[in-house]
């Protein structure tokens, strides 16, 4: 298993949102909101469909720019990786997908094969190394995306509803993989609308509703004494609009 090398092991990356808002076509889709992502734990972004979870994560990862307000990383900008709801895999073999990620990072050619094989093995993909990535099952594809993220050696890993299209066995494998990252010291920021999953994984919860940040609290607090009626309704599994 490749060990993760943190660029600045003493200083955990901390992300600040200052009055961040995102608009598209004149419509306010998210915010304005302020929050901090700090520490070394697992943050779950929760909320019903369309609440703005993906948007928040894409802002945090730098894939989209806020329309107003600003974000900044305290200390240094950490190495990051993101796993998307529908994994975007190259039209190549599973192994070639990993070798590509290594090549992009400047890993020397003669080390790529071995590192890719180690990651495939670690994520339970040793028997599909040469299969085209896009004919793999949903669970295998998501694990391949996780293996690729692993090879990027991130300090922060974003996951956007990574299990929403998977069956229970595959969900379990993905959650195990997420905990592998967690135990290696990787900061986890993940969205989910699955309450059970959130109870299993979350250290703290960000609750979004209609693009507004309603709560950001430790998971215990959030689940036991939610501060807003919307969160209470969400936790009780009521259908929300």
């Amino acid at each position, binding site marked *: 298993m490749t060990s993760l090398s943190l660029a600045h092991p003493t200083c955990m990356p901390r992300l600040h949102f200052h009055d961040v808002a995102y608009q598209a076509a004149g419509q306010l889709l998210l915010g304005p909101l302020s929050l901090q992502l700090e520490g070394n734990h697992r943050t779950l972004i929760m909320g019903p469909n369309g609440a703005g979870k993906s948007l928040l994560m*894409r802002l945090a*990862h730098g*894939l989209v720019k806020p329309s107003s307000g600003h974000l900044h990383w305290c200390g240094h900008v950490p190495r*990051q*990786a*993101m796993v*998307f709801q529908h994994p*975007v895999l*190259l*039209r*190549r073999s599973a192994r070639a997908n990993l070798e*590509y*990620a290594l090549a*992009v990072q400047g890993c020397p050619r003669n080390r790529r094969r071995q590192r890719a094989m180690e990651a495939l093995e670690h994520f339970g993909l040793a028997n599909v190394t040469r299969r*085209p990535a*896009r*004919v793999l099952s949903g669970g295998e594809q998501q694990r391949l995306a996780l293996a690729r993220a692993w090879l*990027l050696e991130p300090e922060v890993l974003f996951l956007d509803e990574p299990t929403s299209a998977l069956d229970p066995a595959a969900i379990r494998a993905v959650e195990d993989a997420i905990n592998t990252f967690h135990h290696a010291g990787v900061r986890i920021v993940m969205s989910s609308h699955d309450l059970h999953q959130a109870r299993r994984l979350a250290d703290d919860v960000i609750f979004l509703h209609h693009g507004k940040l309603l709560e950001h609290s430790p998971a215990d607090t959030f689940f036991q004494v939610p501060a807003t009626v919307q969160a209470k309704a969400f936790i009780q599994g009521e259908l929300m609009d």
Partner: protein
Amino acid sequence: MSDSAFITALQLIANFDPELLAIVSLSLRVSLSAVIIAAFIGLPLGAALALYRFPGRAIIIVVFNALMGLPPVVAGLSVYLLLSRAGPLGEFGLLFTPTAMIVAQVILILPILVSLTRQRIEELHGEYAEQLSSMSVSKARRIPTLLWDARLALITVILAGLGRASAEVGAVMIVGGNIDGVTRVMTTAIVLETSKGNLALALGLGLILMLLVALLNGMAYLIGEGTKRSLG
């Protein structure tokens, strides 16, 4: 008359008639060279057009789209003017050589390769963009990545170019001159033999040409189907 011409045509093909073979092989040489050269220029150019945003991009795209319908005689005429004795490149003495024919066909099919490549790469990039950004892949690095991942779609694009090159007559006629044993290709030979009333050779060539075009289309279709099945 035409019945016997048809039979003679089949005999010419079956006997590997040397004149026929020479014409077919020159045709293939000219069109394949043109396609290979146009692909080396057109594929990266199309991909770059898909990825980079700069002033004038829209105009370039529209021009290349329009040039897809460039009449072969116009392509031939412009190369003729360039290469003729009085033209800017006249000193090289390329007019009425296979090289001139290759140049004319490159000009003819380059817009097809650029435009279709740009479309395919733009589609694929729409799918890949966030993942590639997430991995901090530079624009320049994305070009070979996307070209490789679109490889099967691009083979059909190249085959479309080859089809157009091997079927056109106007450009090679003007810059090649249809000189026996030097620049005579299938299409120009068909024109000549038909006008001379030598229908057997014309028909034989026509059959081979049709077969070739059918083969190209068949390959394009099979590759398309294969892609769907093997790459998801």
